[in-house]
């Protein structure tokens, strides 16, 4: 099957039906390995066992940003190429991205309270991630409240592209401003600052979260294609009635 064939929703559904069981199995195995590694990771010399929260917080943050980047590509597909699956991909990703951003914010707060002495500060990193969460809610509101789905999709695509400006702000906020949130400690010039005994479980959990995201996204895209079929059939039935 050529990649271009996936532009056809029926062929895409066939592909999803075939790969979904394998993705579900891979996700379960990845989480079993990741959680085992996370639970057996040594305590941090400063933060103690609370470093275990990082194995949830950081992958959720990475996936929340990756999800918005994916939605930005889908938004281009909707606005420029009017690809039939582009809007499906964007709409299916939005609730997952919102849930991951919520997870990132809550686990971050629960990590911040014992380490910083507060659940929340209005520093640049925390605030920019909160803005990302509000943008996700805005996109969902546009999708869910628009009477004409095509107009809703175009409005959501514009918001997603405007909101993409927030991604580099989140990434570099700890460099551009003085923040309570720690600076970049993994993807930095000179290599990660984190000890490999903690870095390995982190990457294992990040892989598990990535597989979970791909699995949920494909399943949600399948549901969205079916929803559009239902809508088309209902409209045709109403016309012939």
């Amino acid at each position, binding site marked *: 099957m050529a990649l271009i064939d996936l532009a056809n929703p029926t062929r895409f559904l066939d592909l999803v039906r075939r790969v979904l069981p394998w993705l579900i199995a891979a996700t379960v195995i990845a989480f079993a390995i990741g959680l085992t590694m996370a639970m057996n990771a040594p305590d941090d010399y400063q933060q103690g066992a609370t470093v275990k929260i990082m194995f949830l917080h950081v992958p959720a943050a990475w996936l929340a940003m990756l999800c918005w980047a994916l939605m930005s590509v889908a938004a281009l597909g909707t606005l420029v190429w009017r690809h039939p699956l582009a809007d499906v991909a964007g709409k299916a990703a939005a609730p*997952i991205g919102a849930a991951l951003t919520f997870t990132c914010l809550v686990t971050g707060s629960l990590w911040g309270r014992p380490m910083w002495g507060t659940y929340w500060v209005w520093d640049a990193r925390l605030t920019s991630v909160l803005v990302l969460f509000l943008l996700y809610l805005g996109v969902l509101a546009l999708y869910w409240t628009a009477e004409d789905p095509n107009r809703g999709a175009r409005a959501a695509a514009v918001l997603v592209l405007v909101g993409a400006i927030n991604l580099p702000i989140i990434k570099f906020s700890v460099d551009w401003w003085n923040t309570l949130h720690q600076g970049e400690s993994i993807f930095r010039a000179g290599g990660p600052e984190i000890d490999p005994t903690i870095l390995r479980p982190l990457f294992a959990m990040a892989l598990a979260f990535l597989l979970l995201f791909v699995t949920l996204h494909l399943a949600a895209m399948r549901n969205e294609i079916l929803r559009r079929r*239902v809508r088309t059939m209902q409209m045709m039935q109403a016309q012939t009635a």
Partner: protein
Amino acid sequence: MSLGPHADFIVAAYAVALAVVIGLVAWVVLDYSEQRRVLGDLEERGARRRSRRQ
């Protein structure tokens, strides 16, 4: 495995993440069965998609 003096925060973080994952999985599964059910009802009543029309 000891979670130290801040065990409550660690357990709460994992509980929230688990609740979110369960919520997402339930949303996908329930939505799928709902769309399949409605699609089945429509096909039973003779509705066809444009591409399947004779």
